[in-house]
């Protein structure tokens, strides 16, 4: 079973979840551009029913950091 956060990224970026891990970032994932970043925020907020602040969003530069931000909001990911 694929990790639920990884799955959100894979769906939005339209890539195989197997190529993603917590170190994935716009630097090593070609599909992760600014447009995708916008779609990712919407998808994460919808999937985990949270609201992210602009500062939190700016910190989410890797999947691992996104996970951390969500955990800080008590989302079990």
């Amino acid at each position, binding site marked *: 079973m694929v990790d639920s956060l990884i799955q959100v990224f894979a*769906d939005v970026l*339209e890539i195989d979840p197997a190529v993603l891990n917590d170190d994935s970032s716009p630097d090593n994932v070609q599909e992760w551009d*600014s*447009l995708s*970043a*916008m*779609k990712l*925020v*919407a*998808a994460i907020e*919808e999937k985990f029913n949270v609201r*992210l*602040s*602009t500062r939190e*969003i*700016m910190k989410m530069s890797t999947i691992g950091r996104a996970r951390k931000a969500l955990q800080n909001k008590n989302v079990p990911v």
Partner: protein
Amino acid sequence: MALDPKSHWRQYLAAQKQLPKVEFDMRVAIAGSMTVEPLEPYLGAHLISKKFKPCIAVAPFNQLRQICHDYKQVLGRNDLDAIALLWRVEDLFPDILAACLDNPAPVEDLLRELKELAGSVGRLRKSFNGTLIVSTPPYPLLPGFELLDIRQALEGMAVFSAVLQFWTQEIARLERVRILDLHGLMLSLGTKHAHDSRKWLLYRQPYTETFWQEIGRLLGRILAAEKISPKKCIALDLDNTLWGGIIGEDGLQGIQLGDDFPGKAYRDFQQTLVCLKKKGVLLAVASKNNPEDVYEVFDKHDAMILSRKDFAALEIHWDSKVESIRRVAKKLNIGLDSIIFVDDSAKEIGEISERLPDVTCVVVPEELAELSDLFAETDFFDFAEITDEDRRRTEMMAADSARLEIQEAMSEEEFRKSLNLKIEVFAAQKQHLARVTQLINKTNQFNLTTVRRTQDEVEELVGSKDALVLGMDIKDKYGDYGLVGVTILKKKAKSCVIDTLLMSCRVLGRGAEETLIAKLAEAAKSLGCDEIRGRYIATSKNAMVKDFYRHFNFQHEPQTDEWFVRITEAPRTPENIDAILLL
């Protein structure tokens, strides 16, 4: 569980990729003065739910003028069915808009910019053949325009009202540019729920997902309205639908209808029905009652808004409603699939849905406050254009009924003579395009080829040397039917080929068909042709014209499956009909 729109769209795209070749039937480009990417899945999912195979292209950020100038180059394709342009004043003219709050306010400067922008839209309208949709600008999100400022009505709101009014007038003057009312939609949702200032700061994307979803739905409805026929008739129950209570038991004074609850809910619903009637929707009654009780309400109750003459058909008796609805369809000559049936009784609704599954059933809501908005969120009455024929429809139906009564009292021959039928077959001009296109796209039964066309395609044919687009107007002593028939002829050497021939079923059987063929023969002669040729293309609905050609002296040519008639052998106009051809 229903899939959320984004997953739905994602799955659709993934499935399309697996197919070797996809025939899209709705290719749309969306463009905005702001980031519009979030609209794609919502619009896509709506179009899929309406049975389209959509393909959506998102234009580069803020390229509206470039698109107007050369859409093929900016969008990289010329096979689009529709282009939608979404814009905000604060994106395109931020400085002039801000300056409008100065004293004196240079609003004129801003309107001049708007006029130029509307001019660009007008040029795109000329170069682009598909559906063109332009938004209204929503109330600006800009410092100085805060809605909660106590003087805003005199400042930002005053400026914006001028902008909105000016823009809407400019766009309405262009022909056939559809308006996506982004401002109205934002009013409906509320500016607070529509805006997401985080995304605006981070991505130049101003709106919440909820608002994008609403935009997707409205835009989808506008697009679908170009291709899907609206419903034509609402068949209404009376007791506890048009008024509260039961007339047969409660009596004229006992039913609930007036200015207080619950009577006001029913009165408001009647008002909604009047508005729909003005758009061309036919109203009918399907009620189990004694007719005299009902007529007493219609004729004597002070609070009734609807009167008997607002209804194109009245089925008031104790027979089943299935029978009533069938009779309404027959009398109004419409398909069961274009009827909405409204009733408060689950039993009646159940019976109609079971036995007449093509009819759309709507139950009177338990919460009466929802009654007057019963159709507000549906696409039942999404008219792309409203023509004069639409507005006069109920009156025309009344003339039909008068004819029918006379007809029953006379022999067929006498009746035809008594009608004083006047038929005009004429080359369609610009002012006829909307109605001609409407008939081309909605006529199912008396339609030989069922070729559908957009208004631009029709306009192109009107301007073409080798084609003739003919309209047919019919009048008789009971009234004017209006433009009820369309023929498109194409000249091929010495042959005049029938590309399209259709007629409204309301006018059949009085010699109009024969007259049309006679006039087509004249038209063909004037084009220098000596025969008329045509094909019958069968659909599930046009069996009634299967033998049309044979009936009017055409010969079948097996090798081409075409029918032809020499113009000298075409039928003549029947004696009692006064017909002319105007080319």
